[in-house]
């Protein structure tokens, strides 16, 4: 009996691997065939492909910023903060109200509103307030919804996170109303304006909002990476992520690190919200949900808990989601299906993500 048991296990693993390989090959063959058909049919000119790629990179960079929030919290508490998308929503609303408020302040010297007179200051203010409000919400979220459950079985804070997410959505709906609102950007950031790049006889518009979003995201990612990997503070965050008790023995205040992690992750979510508002224009109480889940997918794609992984995963997901429907010749509304199919496939075949972190026992 005892000799047959291990054999059985290896047999099972092998058959799973064979099935996995066969499915992957068939799937890739199918994808290549679709891609070949679409490209050879010439439905889309080169300008269209560039347009898709650009919008994919922009949305991907926002996903990356949100995904970092998931990954930071997961890295330290081993829980998925499902209310993270709502922090983004709070950031988006804060930025919206800053713009609205500044629009209503007249400046005598220019005869225009504050928003149009001091455009850079206005945008900076929107980001600061958006990040601050989301960071504050993140701080209280942890204090109220997660800290009392520290040490409880892992499913329980997860349920609390989903509850917090629903609560924040509904609180926003009650407070701000269910209607969709449109961001009024300052003149320099009108959503239709941008650099015009001629590609294959057509013009592709590289919008200013898109460039702002992309550049700012990359700066945030670099800043965060530097903070975590190169500073002593970041080192202490990684120490807490690895072993809370030993970290406490070093003199690290673990509770404070956890609080600060939620503050940092909230601030990133808030910045993503303001970028979303400025670039896409429309916000409402539910605006954080889909990007939140997408960013979660991105974080899983890159290997949850892994910061560079979340960055790569976010950009990759944005591009795949944007190019995917065109490349496969399917309806554009199916882009969410592509994103979530990726989530399911990654969870089944490579739960450690593409960057491939070796998970410690505690995390698994």
């Amino acid at each position, binding site marked *: 009996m005892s000799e047959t048991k291990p054999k059985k296990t290896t047999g099972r693993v092998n058959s799973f691997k064979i099935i996995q390989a066969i499915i992957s090959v068939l799937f890739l063959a199918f994808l290549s065939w679709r891609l070949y058909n679409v490209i050879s049919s010439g439905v889309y000119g080169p300008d269209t492909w560039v347009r898709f790629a650009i919008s994919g990179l922009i949305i991907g960079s926002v996903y990356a910023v949100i995904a970092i929030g998931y990954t930071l919290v997961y890295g330290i508490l081993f829980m998925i903060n499902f209310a993270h998308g709502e922090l983004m929503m709070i950031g988006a609303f804060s930025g919206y109200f800053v713009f609205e408020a500044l629009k209503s302040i007249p400046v005598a010297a220019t005869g225009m509103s504050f928003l149009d007179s001091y455009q850079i200051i206005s945008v900076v203010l929107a980001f600061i307030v958006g990040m601050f409000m989301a960071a504050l919400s993140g701080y209280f979220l942890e204090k109220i919804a997660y800290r009392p459950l520290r040490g409880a079985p892992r499913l329980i804070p997860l349920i609390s996170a989903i509850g917090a997410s629903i609560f924040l959505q509904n609180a926003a709906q009650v407070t701000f109303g269910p209607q969709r609102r449109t961001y009024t950007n300052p003149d320099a950031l009108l959503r239709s304006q941008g650099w015009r790049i001629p590609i294959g006889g057509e013009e592709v518009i590289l919008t200013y909002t898109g460039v702002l979003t992309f550049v700012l995201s990359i700066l945030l990612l670099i800043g965060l990476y530097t903070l975590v990997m190169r500073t*002593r503070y970041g*080192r*202490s965050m990684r*120490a807490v992520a*690895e072993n809370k008790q*030993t970290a406490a023995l*070093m*003199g690290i205040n673990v509770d404070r690190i956890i609080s600060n992690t939620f503050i940092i992750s909230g601030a990133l979510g808030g910045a993503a919200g303001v970028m979303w508002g400025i670039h896409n224009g429309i916000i409402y109480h539910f605006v954080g949900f889909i990007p939140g889940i997408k960013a979660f997918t991105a974080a899983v794609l890159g290997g949850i808990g892994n910061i560079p992984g979340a960055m790569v995963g976010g950009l990759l997901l944005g591009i795949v989601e944007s190019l995917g429907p065109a490349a496969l010749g399917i309806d554009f509304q199916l882009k969410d299906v592509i994103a979530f199919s990726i989530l399911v496939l990654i969870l089944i075949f490579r739960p450690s993500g593409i960057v491939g972190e070796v998970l*410690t026992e505690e995390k698994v």
Partner: protein
Amino acid sequence: MAMLEVNNIHTYYGNIHALKGVSITVEEKEIVTLIGGNGAGKTSTLRTISGLLKPRLGDIYFEGEKISDTPAHELVYKGITMVPEGRGIFARLTVFENLDMGAYSQPDRFTFDDDLDRVYQLFPRLKEREKQVSGTLSGGEQQMLATARALMANPRLLLMDEPSMGLAPILVESVFETIVEINKTGTTILLVEQNATVALSVANRGYVLQTGEIVLKDSAENLRKDEMVQKAYLGIE
């Protein structure tokens, strides 16, 4: 006044009564050892002193100050550092980063370099491996790293939990040589060990723990001669 005074502490894990009134005193510059079998409460005693566990009854005083209500991360600033059981290396941080975390309570960069030199002198092997991810170190090197990391906090009282655990006999010897060396520089050491033979060979005094109670306390020399200790912990019939 003793440096560390543990007065009749009772510690529980949930409903399990792990320590049933343990009292220990450690004088300055001593090496004191707690010996005992599995589940005797050695580790629980250290964890209670270091603030990771809270005693339900009893007090702990360090240099006259009550510390039984102080959280673990604040005790480091008072001068108590622990090398935890199983070493507690931050496996994905490099050797240098681990040592830097050890100095977390010492914000002064100037003394940091001196401290780093000092521990590298004590453990030259660690300097060679400075940039290496510490999860890839051997068991002996990890024990060196855990000890070095604790020393980076410039402790006055060093708590060590089973430094010999999982090490080859030849390494155990060198670990204990280092412990004596550290003690000579003026650091007081409270040592928990299953390997009573080596522990009693370096310690000044010892306590024998059994099922959460101190059953014997004496100088290390007398404990080595004690019939009960010889039979139960030293393997001498």
